[in-house]
C-alpha cells in the first residue's frame, strides 16, 4: 500500500510536468487548429532561462526559486509570442500543412541554436529551492522538489482555469477557439487573442521546464524532445483542444509511466505507456474529454 502511494505520488509529480507542457499544445490547437511542434523547445529554453538566471541568485531559497521560475516563464511567454508573430502569423492564410512544417523548422532552429549558444553537452541544473526530504507515516518519502512540483502545478492549473473561465480575454479565447469569424464580428482582435494564447502556453511550458530540470538535474538543448512528445500524446489523450483534458492526460500518462517503470517490464516503459494510450484512443477516438468535431474549412 505504501509502495503504491509512493509510486502514485511519483507518478503525479511526473505527470504534472507533462500536464503543464500539454496545456500549451492544446490551447494553441484550440485557437489555431495546428500542433506547435516548437513547443517542446520552448520548454527547453525555459530550463535554460532558469539555469542562467539562477546564476544571479546563487543560494537556494524559496524566494529565489520562485524568482527564477517567474523569469523563465516571462522569458518564454515573450519567446512564444515572438515565434507566433514571426513564423506562424505570416502563414495564417496558407494550408495547415505549411504551418506544421514551419513549426518543425522552428523546432529544429531552436534546438540547433541551443546547441550553438548553450553547448551540446548536458549542464547540471543548480538547486534553486532548498532541498529536504519529508518522511511521512508508513515510510513514504516526499522530496521537497516533488512538493514544489505539485504546488506549482496546482497554482498554475487553478490560475489558468480562472483566466480561461472568468476573465474577458479567457472568454475571448474560447470564443475564438469555437469560431474565429464570429469572434471578429463582435470586435475581438483575434491576433491579440492568439498572441495571448501563445504567451500563456509558453509560460506554462517554462514552468514545466524548470520543474523537470529540478528533478532530473541535467539539462541540454535536446531535452525537450521526449517530454514534449509525451506531453503532445497527453494532450491528444485528454482530447486535443480541451484544457482540462490536457491536464488529465498529462497526469494519467505520468502515473502509467511511473507504475510501468516500477514493474518488471520497466525496459518497455515508453512502449507500454504508449500502448495504453493507443488502446484508450481506440475506444475514445476524440480523447477522454474531447468531442469529435467536423473539420472546418
Amino acid at each position: 500500500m505504501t509502495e503504491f502511494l509512493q509510486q502514485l505520488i511519483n507518478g503525479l509529480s511526473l505527470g504534472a510536468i507533462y500536464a503543464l507542457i500539454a496545456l500549451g499544445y492544446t490551447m494553441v490547437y484550440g485557437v489555431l487548429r495546428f500542433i506547435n511542434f516548437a513547443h517542446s523547445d520552448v520548454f527547453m529554453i525555459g530550463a535554460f532561462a532558469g539555469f542562467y538566471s539562477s546564476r544571479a541568485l546563487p543560494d537556494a531559497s524559496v524566494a529565489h526559486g520562485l524568482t527564477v521560475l517567474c523569469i523563465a516563464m516571462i522569458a518564454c511567454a515573450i519567446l512564444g509570442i515572438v515565434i507566433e508573430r514571426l513564423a506562424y502569423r505570416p502563414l495564417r492564410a496558407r494550408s495547415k500543412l505549411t504551418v506544421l512544417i514551419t513549426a518543425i523548422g522552428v523546432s529544429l532552429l531552436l534546438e540547433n541554436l541551443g546547441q550553438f549558444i548553450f553547448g551540446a553537452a548536458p549542464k547540471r541544473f543548480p538547486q534553486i529551492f532548498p532541498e529536504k526530504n519529508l518522511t511521512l507515516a508508513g515510510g513514504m518519502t516526499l522530496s521537497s522538489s516533488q512538493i514544489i512540483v505539485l504546488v506549482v502545478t496546482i497554482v498554475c492549473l487553478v490560475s489558468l482555469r480562472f483566466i480561461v473561465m472568468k476573465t474577458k480575454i479567457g472568454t475571448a479565447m474560447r470564443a475564438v477557439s469555437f469560431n474565429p469569424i464570429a469572434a471578429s464580428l463582435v470586435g475581438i482582435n483575434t491576433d491579440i487573442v492568439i498572441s495571448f494564447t501563445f504567451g500563456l502556453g509558453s509560460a506554462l511550458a517554462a514552468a514545466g521546464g524548470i520543474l523537470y530540470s529540478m528533478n532530473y538535474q541535467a539539462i541540454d538543448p535536446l531535452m525537450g524532445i521526449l517530454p514534449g512528445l509525451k506531453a503532445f500524446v497527453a494532450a491528444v489523450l485528454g482530447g486535443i483542444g480541451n484544457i482540462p483534458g490536457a491536464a488529465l492526460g498529462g497526469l494519467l500518462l505520468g502515473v502509467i509511466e511511473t507504475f510501468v517503470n516500477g514493474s518488471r517490464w520497466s525496459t518497455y516503459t515508453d512502449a507500454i505507456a504508449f500502448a495504453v494510450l493507443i488502446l484508450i484512443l481506440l475506444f475514445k477516438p476524440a480523447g477522454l474529454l474531447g468531442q469529435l468535431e467536423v473539420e472546418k474549412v
Partner: protein
Amino acid sequence: MLEIKNLTVNYGVITALHDVSLTIPRGSIVTLIGGNGAGKTTTLRAISGLLQPAGGSIHYAAENGRAEEITSVPAHQLVRRGLAHVPEGRMVFANLTVQENLQMGAYLQRDKALIRRELDYVFGVFPRLQEREKQIAGTLSGGEQQMLAIGRALMSQPKFLMLDEPSLGIAPLLVKTIFEKIVEINRAHGITILLVEQNANLALEISHFGYVLETGRVILQGAAAALRQNPQVRSAYLGGA
C-alpha cells in the same frame, strides 16, 4: 449611412459580385433579396470586412457627418464604428453560455454600467434569453440561437445592423416575432438595418427599400412597396400570384 459603389468580389476565379451598388439611408430598413447563390451573404461579408473586395468602394457615415471609406477595414475594427453583423447560420458561440455570448457581444465596451443597461435592453427584447442566461448556447433551440445571435449583435450598441437570413430554419410563428423585433429595433432605437432574406414577402413588408440580386448583379431596386407589386419580383420571389 452606407454607400456601396461598384463592389466586385471574387472567390479565386469565380466572381461572386459584379459592380454591385447599394445605398442604405440612415434610419431605414433595406432588404436584399435573391435566390440561392445570388451573392447576398457575400455582400454582407464584404461590408463587414470579412472579405477583401476586388473592386469598388464602401463608405460609411456613423454619425451625421462625413462618410469614411471602410472598404478594407478588418471586421473587428468596424464593430467599434457601430457596425454589427448577424451572420448566416447564426454562429453563436456554442461552447459559451448565453450570458457569456452576450458579454462577448459587448467585447469593446469597458463601462460595466453600460453593459448592464444594454443587457437589460436585450432581455427586454428577448425575454427568453434571460430565462436561459446560464444555459450553454449550443443547447438552445434554433429560434433561441437566432435571438441570441441578434441579442449579441445588439450588445455592441450598433448604429447599423446587418442580418443574414434571420428566418432560416425557424417556425413561422417565431419568424413573425423576430420580424416584429427587427421593426422595433429599427423604430425605437433608430438602428439602420440591412436585411438579407429568402422570405421576400415578409422582408419587403417591413422594409423601406429593396434590392434584388441575381448571380452577383443588382437586377432591380426600388421602394419596398413598389417591388412587391413588380410582376417580375412576384413571380420569382413572392410565389407567383
